[in-house]
């Protein structure tokens, strides 16, 4: 090959690189075989307590939902996992059609008009929604309740670091947005109101009232929703959300220490041309056959560059594909059933735990599959007793909300059994 190129050695190909750049020393050990690699990775993995062999009561944005075997079998097919962005549509109909189907499914689930083909995660989707609202309305304020996931609030703040805008935190009352404070802060310089449903505490917010007040001032409503909850909760499109975003992890993706997952981003029609990210559309080929293609590309970075609606290029396609397969496997009746199982298990746990002496209600408002409880027990003892019984979590809320010290956030999905609950009760009682 070197002969064909016309150089005597490889060095001849890179002779234009300054010599002093070539002399560096790096501290990297020699390579190992696949056998040795497997062994080493297993060993490192032993230092992780995984929840296949333990009971997870942690949620807060990533949930232990059951993933049927079909999903990985299909999504990890080489044709999906080793393909890339479908720029050559004719050779990527698999990717494009599944993107279109994903978009359609998310629109149906959320009762919104248009979806993109995925964003990085729920938090960054929320931040991009805020940016869109600021640009679209020309106004300068974003209202976000204190009951929104703290990491999401931080991501929104980071995204808006150099944008001429103000983020106003609406205080919470009884675990949900304080409506009085909300009305007080609302004015006609507010571009958007963010509402997480259910919120960080699993509590249901007053969506209709918030929507009414938001639109009265001419602001946009950005709903940040849990997709599984939409099996029984009213979808954001029906309570007037202009943009709906959320974390898609619960739809067929493993928790995987926080990523990769996907954020969904759906809008009502007037905002279509402003949304970030890739979009697949249905059209025809030159012979009139149905075909799918990337469309409305003129919004994106590779065409608009600094005037693009966002800088996003690579998205979370494979994770969204898993979500689409998962929703297809569920069907409309299935997702309702799944949501009911979550609701039931959580309410059953809530009722049982409150019977324990020293366990008290924190918020009186209704909740979906996650709730906060105050557990007046020695923290160290409680931690040990939970560990002894193989229980991971619940989440100590004092780390996020200092005023909620001694309170814990407990997530209960369809996977939690009566036996799991029994052990959780025992752990608390023993502390």
């Amino acid at each position, binding site marked *: 090959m070197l002969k064909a190129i016309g150089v005597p050695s490889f060095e001849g190909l890179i002779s234009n690189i300054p010599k002093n750049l070539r002399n560096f020393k790096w501290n990297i050990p020699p390579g190992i075989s696949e056998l040795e690699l497997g062994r080493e990775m297993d060993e490192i993995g032993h230092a992780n307590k995984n929840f296949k062999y333990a009971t997870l009561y942690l949620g807060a944005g990533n949930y232990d939902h059951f993933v049927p075997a079909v999903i990985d079998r299909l999504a990890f097919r080489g044709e999906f996992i080793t393909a890339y962005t479908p720029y050559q549509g004719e050779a990527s109909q698999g990717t494009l059609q599944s993107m279109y189907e994903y978009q359609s499914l998310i629109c149906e689930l959320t009762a919104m008009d248009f979806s993109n083909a995925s964003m990085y995660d729920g938090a960054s989707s929320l931040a991009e929604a805020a940016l869109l609202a600021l640009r679209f309305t020309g106004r300068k304020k974003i209202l976000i309740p204190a009951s929104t996931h703290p990491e999401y609030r931080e991501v929104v703040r980071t995204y808006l670091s150099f944008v001429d805008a103000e983020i106003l935190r609406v205080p919470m009352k009884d675990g949900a947005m304080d409506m009085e404070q909300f009305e007080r802060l609302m004015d006609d310089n507010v571009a958007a109101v963010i509402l997480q449903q259910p919120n960080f505490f699993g509590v249901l917010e007053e969506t209709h009232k918030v929507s009414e007040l938001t639109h009265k001032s001419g602001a946009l409503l950005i709903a940040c929703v849990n997709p599984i909850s939409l099996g029984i909760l009213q979808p954001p499109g029906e309570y007037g959300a202009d943009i709906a975003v959320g974390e898609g992890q619960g739809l067929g993706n493993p928790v995987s220490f926080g990523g990769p997952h996907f954020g969904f981003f759906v809008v009502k029609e007037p905002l279509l*041309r402003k949304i970030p990210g890739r979009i697949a559309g249905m059209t025809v080929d030159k012979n009139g056959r149905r075909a799918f293609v990337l469309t*409305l*590309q*003129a919004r994106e970075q590779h*065409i*608009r560059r600094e*005037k693009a609606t966002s800088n996003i290029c690579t998205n979370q396609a494979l994770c969204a594909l898993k979500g689409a397969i998962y929703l297809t496997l569920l069907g409309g009746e299935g997702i309702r059933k799944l949501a009911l199982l979550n609701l039931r298990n959580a309410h059953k746990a809530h009722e049982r735990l409150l019977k324990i002496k020293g366990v008290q209600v924190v918020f009186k408002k209704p909740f979906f599959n996650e709730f906060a409880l105050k557990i007046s027990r020695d923290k160290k003892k409680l931690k040990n007793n939970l560990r002894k019984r193989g229980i991971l979590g619940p989440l100590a809320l004092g780390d996020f909300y200092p005023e909620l010290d001694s309170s814990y956030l407990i997530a209960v999905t369809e996977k939690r059994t009566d036996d799991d609950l029994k052990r959780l009760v025992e752990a608390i009682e023993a502390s």
Partner: protein
Amino acid sequence: MTDLSKLKYTATHEWVSLNGKTATVGITDYAQKEISDAVFVELPKEGRVVRKKESAMVIESVKAAFDIYAPMSGKIAKVNDSLKDKPETVNKSPYEQGWLFQIECSDPKEFESLLTQEQYLGVKDSGY
């Protein structure tokens, strides 16, 4: 048929016709050829104030987005709504049905400093 010699032009391929204080603006045949199939026309909001040479709106093709510049200063008085459903009109009839917007000019004298047809053809051929 519009008499193209009566129109004035910009170096960025817009044509302008002036009627009293109202200027009508569109893109030239050269521009529509460069854009090829227009797929979306993002018209300016009525009432918006524009300055001469400021980007007033965008025409999109499948693979590109083109800024259209206001040839004169003033307020956007009217826009060609028909382009919302039929963006291809810009290609088919750039000087007639494909007009883009009308400006209520703050300084109609700006019209005089625009290019004549002869000047525009000169600029165009020099490969601007």
